[in-house]
């Protein structure tokens, strides 16, 4: 049988030879002709020096600097490049003992003889200066420049967050990071890590046996330039922040203030707090352990993570929902005889005149009025099942930002809790529960949990008469940047602006009204503050004091929520604090020195658990 295609073997052979030729030619080019890859003298070693860029700066909303960088230096060693040297002088410059030296050297050698490792982290600038002069005496050692954070004022530590070394899991996942790199671990440092970190560069140097840099490898062809981090402008007002933290000293709780028209957070206070300088550089590990062990939990960001039953401040929501659902009117009158009575059930109330309409009920914080309102909402004939009415009620709350994370640009936000229909179905049986079963929801008790952020957002919604922007802490990324797109979007809550007026009237009355108004202590002469007090029941100790407000009534500039734990009535403690913040922000000075003194002197110890 003739093999018709036998001649094809010649083409195949040619293919092999051509392929080999291509490879050899290319090798010839890169190994012989192109000199840039070659290392000249046998004694030269390559030293890659990472260029760490300056981390982005953080300014406040008025352009005042909050966070900047200071230089720090790491001392690196390549053991195989070291020779015998004057260790006494070396230790003297560094300020370490012979024992310390030996143990550090041992660690470096066991990591690798040939790859660089850190001999000593973050030596001071003075040590660095001394060392640089004599570094030629210590071959194998070199210095790498780093940056550490520095703060203009010891405030806003929760929001700013801190920077630390990147952990191994992340190194495995993200090629950009090497062991010993820094990364934002919490707060803005973490959320905006990619913008703040810039981009590392690398200079590859040729170094001779005497530890002298002979030049750049391949004329710098493989060097990359470090790109500095992008600067950020935070939304907070640094002076206001400092003032808020001062007012909250010796108290436990939080303050969240938002600019309603934009969702920008003016101040974010969680108390007790800590000095951000504690978590910088060499002292960070020890200080972190200390802070973590502290029983008052200074690291815990109460503004975003503490979920409390909102208490009477929640009545506003039921008022608004009732109006929108058309089951109550601003003029609706409900009586209250030291409480709400329905059959065997009683919900107590403080003494005040009766009956009241909506604005009055808000101003005087009448429980009975809102129990009635809430009941009307759930027993609305429009809905066949109570579960349906409840779902509908819940939807409004979700639209206001309750029950879910709002989406602030900080990573540790929690979602609070609004119980769902299925929760009660499971507990009582499907649709076998009634408005009275869950009546505590009318006055903000029971299974509701809301964070101070969510309450401040609610205040912002009321200030805006029905809409909001997601609260955020960074308003500008880079010189001509804007915030992340999520924050330029307006959200509508489904309650028409007209329905806000009677509630706002009530909130105005709470602060500026006459007898029975719950927050007269917060009143300002020149500006109309609208607010609502709240007292959250605390099963573990004294009740928490809450106040939400916005000002001025028309064209509001600030919406605020203040929580003071274990303090008792909202009017006595949270309201004055909110009022002072408002006064400081809107007028720039405090006229009511007596009030300020009172708050500053207040010391509220967290009650021990019973």
């Amino acid at each position, binding site marked *: 049988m003739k093999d018709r295609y036998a001649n094809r073997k010649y083409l195949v052979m040619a293919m092999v030879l051509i392929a080999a030729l291509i490879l050899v030619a290319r090798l010839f080019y890169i190994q012989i002709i192109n000199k840039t890859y070659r*290392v000249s003298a046998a004694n030269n070693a390559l030293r890659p020096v990472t260029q760490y860029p300056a981390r982005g700066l953080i300014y406040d909303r008025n352009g005042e600097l909050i966070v900047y960088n200071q230089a720090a230096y790491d001392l690196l060693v390549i053991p195989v490049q070291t020779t015998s040297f004057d260790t006494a002088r070396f230790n003297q410059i560094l300020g370490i003992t012979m024992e310390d030296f030996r143990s550090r050297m041992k660690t470096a050698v066991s990591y690798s003889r040939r790859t660089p490792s850190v001999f000593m982290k973050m030596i001071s600038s003075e040590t660095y200066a001394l060392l640089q002069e004599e570094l030629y005496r210590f071959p194998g050692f070199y210095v790498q420049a780093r940056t550490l954070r520095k703060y203009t004022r010891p405030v806003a530590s929760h929001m700013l967050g801190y920077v630390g070394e990147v952990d191994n899991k992340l190194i495995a996942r993200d090629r950009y990071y090497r062991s010993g790199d820094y990364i934002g671990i919490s707060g803005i440092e973490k959320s905006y890590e990619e913008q703040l970190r810039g981009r590392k560069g690398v200079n590859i140097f040729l170094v001779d046996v005497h530890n002298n840099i002979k030049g750049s490898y391949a004329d710098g062809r493989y060097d990359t330039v470090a790109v500095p981090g992008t600067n950020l402008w935070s939304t907070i007002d640094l002076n206001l922040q400092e003032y808020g933290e001062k007012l909250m000293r010796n108290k436990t709780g939080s303050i969240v203030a938002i600019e309603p028209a934009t969702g920008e957070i003016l101040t974010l206070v969680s108390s007790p707090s800590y000095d951000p300088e504690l978590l910088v550089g060499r002292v960070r590990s020890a200080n972190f352990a200390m802070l973590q062990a502290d029983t008052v939990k200074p690291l815990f960001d109460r503004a975003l993570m503490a979920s409390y039953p909102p208490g009477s401040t929640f009545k506003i929501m039921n008022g608004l929902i009732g109006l929108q659902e058309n089951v109550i009117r601003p003029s609706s009158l409900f009586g209250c005889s030291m409480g709400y009575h329905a059959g065997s059930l009683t919900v107590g109330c403080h003494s005040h005149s009766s009956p009241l309409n909506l604005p009055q009920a808000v101003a005087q914080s009448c429980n009975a009025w809102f129990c009635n309102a809430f009941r009307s909402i759930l027993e609305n004939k429009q809905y066949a099942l109570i579960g349906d009415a409840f779902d509908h009620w819940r939807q409004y709350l979700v639209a206001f930002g309750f029950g879910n994370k709002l989406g602030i640009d900080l990573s540790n936000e929690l979602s609070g809790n609004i119980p769902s229909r299925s929760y009660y179905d499971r507990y009582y049986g499907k649709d076998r529960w009634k408005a009275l079963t869950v009546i505590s929801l009318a006055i903000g008790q029971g299974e509701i949990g809301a964070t101070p952020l969510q309450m401040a957002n609610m205040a912002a919604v009321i200030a805006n008469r029905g809409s909001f922007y997601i609260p955020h802490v960074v308003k500008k990324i880079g010189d001509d940047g804007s915030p992340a797109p999520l924050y330029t979007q307006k959200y509508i809550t489904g309650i028409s602006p007209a329905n806000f007026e009677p509630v706002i009237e009530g909130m105005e009355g709470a602060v500026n009204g006459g007898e029975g108004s719950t927050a007269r202590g917060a009143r300002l002469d020149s500006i109309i503050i609208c607010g609502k007090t709240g007292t959250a029941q605390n099963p573990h100790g004294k009740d928490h004091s809450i106040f939400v407000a916005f000002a001025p009534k028309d064209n509001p500039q600030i919406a605020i929520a203040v929580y003071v734990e274990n303090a008792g009535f909202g009017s006595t403690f949270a309201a004055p604090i909110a009022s002072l913040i408002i006064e400081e922000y809107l007028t720039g000075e405090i006229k009511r020195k007596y009030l300020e003194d009172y708050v500053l002197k207040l010391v509220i110890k967290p009650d021990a658990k019973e």
Partner: protein
Amino acid sequence: MQKSSNILGRLDWVTVILWLVMMIMGWLNIYAAVYNEQHTSIFDISQRYGKQLMWIFAALVLAVLVLVTDNKLWFFFAWFIYGFFIFLLIMVLIVGNEINGAKAWFEIGPFSIQPSEFAKFATGLALASYLNSQRQSSGYRVMGPATAIIMAPMVLIALQPDMGSVITYFAFFIVLYREGMSIYVFISAILAVALFLLTLMLGNVPVAIGLIVMAIVALAVTSGPMLTLKATGILAVSGGLAFLAGHYLLDLKIAGIIVAAVVMAGFGFLWFIYRMKLKLPAVIYAFLISGIFYLFTVDYAFHNILQPHQQTRINIMLGMEADPFGEGYNLNQSLISIGSGGFAGKGYLNGTQTKFKFVPEQSTDFIFCTVGEEWGFLGSVVVIGLFVWLLLRLLVLAERQRTTFIRAYGYGVFGLFLVHVFVNIGMTIGVMPVIGIPLPFFSYGGSSLWGFTILLFVFLRLDAGRSEYLG
């Protein structure tokens, strides 16, 4: 036994020695590549060099086992082996372990086995068996199913996904070429690849316009000025129409307008071609329109179907992108280390780049970097020379066969080695995009070493018994 001395006598010792030499060189090279100061003994089993020695011993055993088998065994069981590995390839998708993003491995105790490495061998056998049975005929009736035999494992491996392995299966088309596949298939393939690369480098619109110009020129050359003018006229008119409709009515981009123009021109030509019964212009047009559709399709596929890192790798090879910290990192480091080897290299165990662990995957896919850095141009050429010797030797062995089965299988072995060597070394020096496939006998790994050993030794065994009748 007479048979065994026959085998030993007829065994091609040149190849066996080449195989031994390369395995030893590979082993020494791995020692240099991942040298660990804590474990300086080359026999240290906790390190890759110690392990590789174990794989080498196992490979020796495998080789002997293969040589002891009966020739007919491979012939008869070709399809069973193929079926078995197809089954394994399906199973690994279901119960396999995912390493580096591909479900390609079975883990049995401390060992990992990669079925796709052995499936190449099975495919070689099955393909050879099929071609042998069809040796009386040729053409599409034979080549069609033959292509299917090759594509089946390719598809399964593409699902893992392990694109590198998939690409090595194209080696089997060399077998088809030798056994009679129409050369036009290969010419079309080369043209298609060239068109693809041109499209990437120059952009889809310039290349499309280039194709149109070429078509007009071809028409002018073959069919004279009158016809060319008429064709250009039709093209211009349909171009204008397409532009008006596309730009103002339908809002098409230029790409769409060109396609529409060519298609509409086709309708115009139809009338001519039908009336005047013109064959050649029809063929030219057919090429033009298929070329146009093809280039827009691959352009779309490249940008929308290929993964971003795969796109980047191809762009880097074409010199259109650098990406030194990302995808270009491997290539950059590889070039530095090989380039710095100079003429004679830095000497054994003196490679600074690989010591500093600059080169990723330096004991597997980028093993050639250690050769280049430590043994320089001389050493690199020697290694390439050894492979060329092996390849040409395989060709010689394949051509001296009287049975189609053995020859076809031999070409399969040849093709696989050629693709692996050229792609692997090519990738380390920037001639091919970074595709992760091992360098035979040099890259660390039991599966790859045994896969190539079995591949090779089955061929050697068949060759040794080439005078026997297989039936």
